[in-house]
């Protein structure tokens, strides 16, 4: 097996475009498009804090169950795809907790997003909750 050890990969024709071959060899894809541009594991109990992350400059605790995440490097537009998962040891297994982008009240931008955790199976409009384990991964194009 050959191996190249290098610190930076840059597209020769276009700096942000490197093509890689699929696992089965039947297709090619752009390497940059498949990379997660932001991910974070963070805690909202007590003082909200980032446990581990990439491309995040800061986390701001806005309210119970709500935090704003600021990116170190901005996206090229606000249409990036988000996948999230909340959890916490104190939450009943029967409870349904969601961690969603609060785009209706605070629209996401290229540089930040506001996420909120709440009971989804509550009759109340929104019962917010400070979840201890919050995971988020965002895919899209960086500026």
């Amino acid at each position: 097996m050959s191996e190249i050890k290098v610190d930076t990969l840059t597209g020769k024709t276009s700096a942000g475009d490197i093509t890689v071959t699929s696992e089965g060899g039947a297709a090619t894809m752009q390497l940059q498009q498949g990379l997660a541009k932001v991910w974070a594991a963070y805690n909202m109990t007590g003082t909200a804090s980032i446990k581990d992350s990439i491309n995040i400059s800061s986390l701001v605790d806005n309210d119970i169950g709500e935090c704003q995440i600021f990116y170190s490097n901005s996206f090229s537009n606000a249409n990036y795809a988000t996948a999230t998962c909340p959890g916490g040891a104190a939450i009943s297994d029967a409870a349904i907790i969601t961690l969603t982008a609060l785009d209706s009240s605070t629209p996401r931008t290229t540089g930040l997003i506001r996420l909120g955790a709440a009971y989804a199976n509550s009759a109340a409009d929104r019962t917010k909750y400070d979840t201890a384990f919050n995971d988020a991964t965002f895919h899209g194009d960086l500026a």
Partner: protein
Amino acid sequence: MSELRTDTITASDGTSPVTLTKQSAAKAWVSFDAYTSISVSESFGVSSIDDDATGDFGVNLSSAMSASTYAVQGTLDGSPYDNRALTSATGTKTSSAFDVVTLNANTGGLLDFDNNYYLVHGDLA
């Protein structure tokens, strides 16, 4: 610091994929609106979205996966409910498409939401 400039990276046999050390790239992702009508905001590796019924969608992949055992993650938000939006796969899944439903977690009823996000990880064919 060293820098390699290239347009394509392939394994030394000229056809196989390179190994990204302990890393894996997503093979597809999509952001679409289904609240009023289906509208894809941005995507990668997704050819189209099928509107099968209220809260019932098919996601078609541009390049097939090697099997139907790939991982799908999904999240919803926005109208009509930020906090009661849930999504799950229906089990209808092939190497080139998967089905999902979106629902109101409080009532269990299928609903169309305006922000739908799905990611796919696994091996391409």
